[in-house]
């Protein structure tokens, strides 16, 4: 199997202006979240909270409020 290096075009980073709005918010994340049901959104938030709680227990990471 041959391996080739990607061309500059293939790895060119997306300009920041195409990703973030003028407040620095990635709108594509919001649009993706809006496709989920409210229940799915809350479940994700809950999973993340459980993850942070576990980190806190393991490492004493301060609670973010």
């Amino acid at each position, binding site marked *: 199997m041959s391996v080739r290096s990607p061309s500059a075009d293939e790895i060119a980073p997306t300009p920041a202006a195409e990703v973030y*709005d003028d*407040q*620095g*918010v990635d*709108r594509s*994340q*919001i*649009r*993706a*979240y*809006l496709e*989920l*049901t*409210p*229940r799915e*959104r*809350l*479940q*994700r*938030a*809950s*999973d*993340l*909270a*459980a993850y*942070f*709680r576990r980190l806190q227990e393991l490492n004493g990471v301060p*609670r*973010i*409020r």
Partner: protein
Amino acid sequence: MASLGFVEALEHLRRAEVELIVVGMASAVLQGTPAVTQDIDIVHRRTPANIERLLEALASLDAVYRTDNRGIRPSASHLLGPGHNLLKTRAGDLDCLGTIDADLGYEDLEPDSIEIVLGAGLTCRVLELSRLIEIKQRAGRPKDLAVLPVLRATLDELRKR
């Protein structure tokens, strides 16, 4: 301690027919904001009948005050007041708030809340995003101001739909 999650906590409360409005970042999440929150904030209706239902639901979630190590359970007198009850439950942290902002209770916030579907036959009232933004703007703490851009962007995306 938490063996259940936020979804189960809200389901529990609503199945017990507790009248409540989800406020804070959990309400933003439910409306489409991709954000992190470590608890659910609710404003409950402070009538004796609703407090009774809330107490029953909290007991079944093993709720105790999380700021005190003695495992104190909330009582009716605690929940009837305007203060904030910061609880830990087996479904995560749950804040039962008598009032928020400038002493706004359930009845004050209800006109600016919407009902969302949580699951089959189960709905839940949440504070509208535009009102949440106003409240966070007024609170003006760094942590409130930090989330304003993503809240405003979510509101903007919702209005485009």
